[in-house]
């Protein structure tokens, strides 16, 4: 279900795609960890936006659009980036590894786990790009 980023529809669309994409299911079959995305205001985004995703063994067990951080007190990962940088990743103009290695995408959590699972991270980004028809 393609949708405009950022929106609740987009997040739901991402959840649906993560649960139906065979390639993602295979590559991410060992992934265990929920995460917060904090999108910092910039450009067209005026207020901080938060996405929560619970990713588990190649599936997405749930999403939450703009939750209070207290609702999920111990996420495995917290990812933070400016709106323009997230938009650039989703539109394919910023390599996700570049974003991470240059700290345009800040990562909190087990870096060892993240490095061990780079293929999963990259495929997650592919899926997110595929559900994005338009960026606000």
């Amino acid at each position: 279900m393609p949708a405009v980023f950022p929106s609740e529809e987009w997040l739901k669309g991402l959840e649906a795609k993560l649960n139906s994409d065979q390639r993602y299911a295979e590559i991410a079959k060992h992934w265990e960890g929920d995460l917060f995305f904090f999108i910092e205001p910039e450009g067209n985004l005026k207020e901080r936006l938060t996405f929560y995703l619970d990713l588990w063994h190649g599936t997405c067990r749930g999403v939450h659009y703009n939750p209070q951080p207290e609702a999920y007190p111990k996420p495995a990962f917290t990812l933070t980036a400016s709106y323009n940088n997230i938009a650039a990743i989703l539109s394919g103009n910023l390599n996700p590894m570049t974003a991470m290695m240059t700290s345009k995408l800040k990562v909190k959590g087990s870096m060892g786990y993240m490095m061990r699972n780079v293929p999963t991270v990259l495929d997650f980004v592919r899926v997110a790009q595929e559900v994005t028809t338009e960026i606000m």
Partner: protein
Amino acid sequence: MQPILKINLTTGKTEEYRIPERWEKDFLGGASLAARILYSGLTKELDPLSAEAPLLFLMGPMTGTSGPTTGRFVICGKGPATGLWAESNIGGFWGPELRAAGYDGLWITGKASEPVYLWLNGSRLEVRSAAHLWGQDTYTTQDKVKEEVGDKSTRVCVIGEAGEKQVLYASIMCDHGRMAGRTGMGAVMGSKNLKAIAVRGRNEIPVFNLVAYKILRSESNRRLKDDNEAKIIREVGTGGVANYAEYLGAMPVKYYSRGSFEKIDDVSGSKMAETILVGRSACQGCVIACGRVVKLPQDMTKRKGPEHETMVGFGANLLNDDLEAIVDLGDLCDHYGMDTISTSNTIGLAFHLYERGIITEKDTGGIALKWGDVNAIEQLVRMIGSRDGLGDIMAQGARRFGAYFNAEEEAVQVNGLEVAYHDPRGVSGMALSYATSPRGACHNQSDYFFVDWGHTQEKIGIEYLSRHGQAEKAANVAKHQDWRTMFNSMVMCIFANVEPDEQVKLINAACGLDWSLEDLMKSGERAWNLKRAINNRMGLTRANDKLPKALLEPFSDGGSAGFVPDIQGMLSAYYQARGWDVETGKPSREKLLELGLEDVAQDLWGEDLALG
């Protein structure tokens, strides 16, 4: 900068050498300044293991100032295996201690008549007998020297048995595990009968504008602490990239013949962190702490854990998936004082030649070289370190070892330096890095694999191109080399994500300069060209810029199956980007003059310059 102390071990004479001011401005410090200082003495005829050969320990202008990862220094000379420019940088605390003693370098020449060590206590130098230390390993030697000089704060640089026996890739160690690994500077030190250099300093290290510098360094260190890459390296060490490198098909497996290693997870930094890691260690002032401290179940003794190169070299490269054995093998090399890249690469060549029937058990002294056999690997390490049997030939490096058995083309080396563990079939920029590095197949003169993994540097225009890009990335590689050359001038660790404009500010505050970003890059380019000219004078031509056969054969498996770098196309674009003479591979006269290297232009182009 402070003076360099020149020591002639033949005569026992010492003198203070003042670095010309213009050279400091043009080359800053570290390896770049060392190249300028040693330029005229590095000739084709010079035997790198002779008394006349220089061994220069040189600091950077920020060494020991607690700037971001600036506890480092370099050791330079002529490489005994390569016959080319040699530099090897090293962390720990020895460099800062030397600066605190009032010197920014030690320039050793000559040869002592018997084994000695130097004891520099402030400005007082003693040459002491090391006869009782000869034959001792690197760790024991450091402890004994410290005990003898009676000051626990003393820092000691040492060689092990490999350096004494002039294994051509012997290293120099300080601070229990920090190594100047590459290019055989330990053999040069051994050839001078110099076992160790103990240093104790008590002075403040000079910084031009300390107030401004303190503010800049604390901002820089704070940013660095929070940097993603720094966090990765702190948490899982440099070996934390193993899974990613393997996924890309950029990790050499079975002596560069395979593109994937199914057991990679067992020999990764992540696995080490989960199993045997008990602590971390850092060089002076470093907030990253890449050093690993591990305990193995069999003895529960704390020891150094391997970094990426050692893990791959004694792991995937030899089809060994035993992490604890890799720790032991790295430790063994350290005790002998040998570079783990060159050692494991040369051992890989032995296994490769054995598999092809080029060498047999008759050559190995009865050892069957079965891939992954840890006992066989360990025996070869010991034979090399002691120069026993086949180890005596292997101690001369992969190129000469291969040549001895008429199989030089099988050796994965460039100009006598064994290729490090970043395969250009997975990260193509490394093809140019290896082929054009001034010290042979080095991954640190331009660790372009980082760029090919996605690490760009927008402020100086190093952009991300496909990891399988070809000639289009030549200019990018050249720029990256110039920038990394500045790391070796400062001397700053390449694991530090410090922005170039931040570096400029730090340099200006530390040295009282008024550099711009352009000046920084120009200085890097100047030093790169100077090192090239040194090598040209020592016989290097365009024909030396090449890759070994193995790296030009496509993998049949893994993340880079089917790809090989177009090295000739890349080189042509590279010469153009560099402004080098396409026919000879020398920096053009115009380029040298543009960089203010008039004397070098005269030496390289002679009459042409006069006519011009």
